[in-house]
């Protein structure tokens, strides 16, 4: 069966510091991968998605970036964090071929607090 791992679970960082969040998927090949952010009490905002190694699409201009160095690894980064980057970051995967009957599957999330 497929599993998705995200780490760290929580992170407290000062303004201006760098960021690296990692997500890995097991049990499938060439998944579509997604990074979402959820502000407190709000819905999900799609930040990045990837359909293959090195292929990244950005949905929202910001000081975050994403990379996919390996097939099942997705990394969210920042060189200098802003206060507005605080939130709950969720990684998700979906089946490689577009099959509408498969939902996106979410990791446990990283709660990021910027001080």
């Amino acid at each position, binding site marked *: 069966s497929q599993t998705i791992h995200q780490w760290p679970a929580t992170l407290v960082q000062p303004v201006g510091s760098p960021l690296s969040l990692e997500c890995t998927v097991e049990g499938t090949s060439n998944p*579509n991968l*997604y990074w979402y952010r959820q502000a407190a009490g*709000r*819905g*999900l905002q*799609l930040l990045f*998605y990837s*359909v293959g190694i090195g292929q990244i699409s950005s*949905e929202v201009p910001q000081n975050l970036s994403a990379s996919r160095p390996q097939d099942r690894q997705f990394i969210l980064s920042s060189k200098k964090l802003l206060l507005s980057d605080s939130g709950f970051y*969720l990684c*998700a995967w*979906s089946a490689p071929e*577009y099959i*509408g*009957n*498969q*939902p*996106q*599957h*979410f*990791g*446990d*999330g990283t*709660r990021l607090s910027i001080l």
Partner: protein
Amino acid sequence: ELKVEQNPLFLSMQEGKNYTIYCNYSTTSDRLYWYRQDPGKSLESLFVLLSNGAVKQEGRLMASLDTKARLSTLHITAAVHDLSATYFCAVDPTMEYGNKLVFGAGTILRVKS
């Protein structure tokens, strides 16, 4: 731009009562998903609705899709405390955006004993 609107955004209900959460979306789509999120937790997939008239049921929850009206409903029957959570609908517009989802703002459900 695709908009997905849920209402109500907050719902407080007594155990044993019935209620419906509505999800309206602004563009053509025949793929809609419902998720549940417990406080501080990730999202859990509840239902996948793939065609006009689709109806899915799991326990006390039933979801339906009317693609002509661009409306999905999540009906709660005889609510119990364990159903307290935030419920999201998400739409896949496919033809415009590829395999991406646009989420509603979520409905916070509190079931009172």
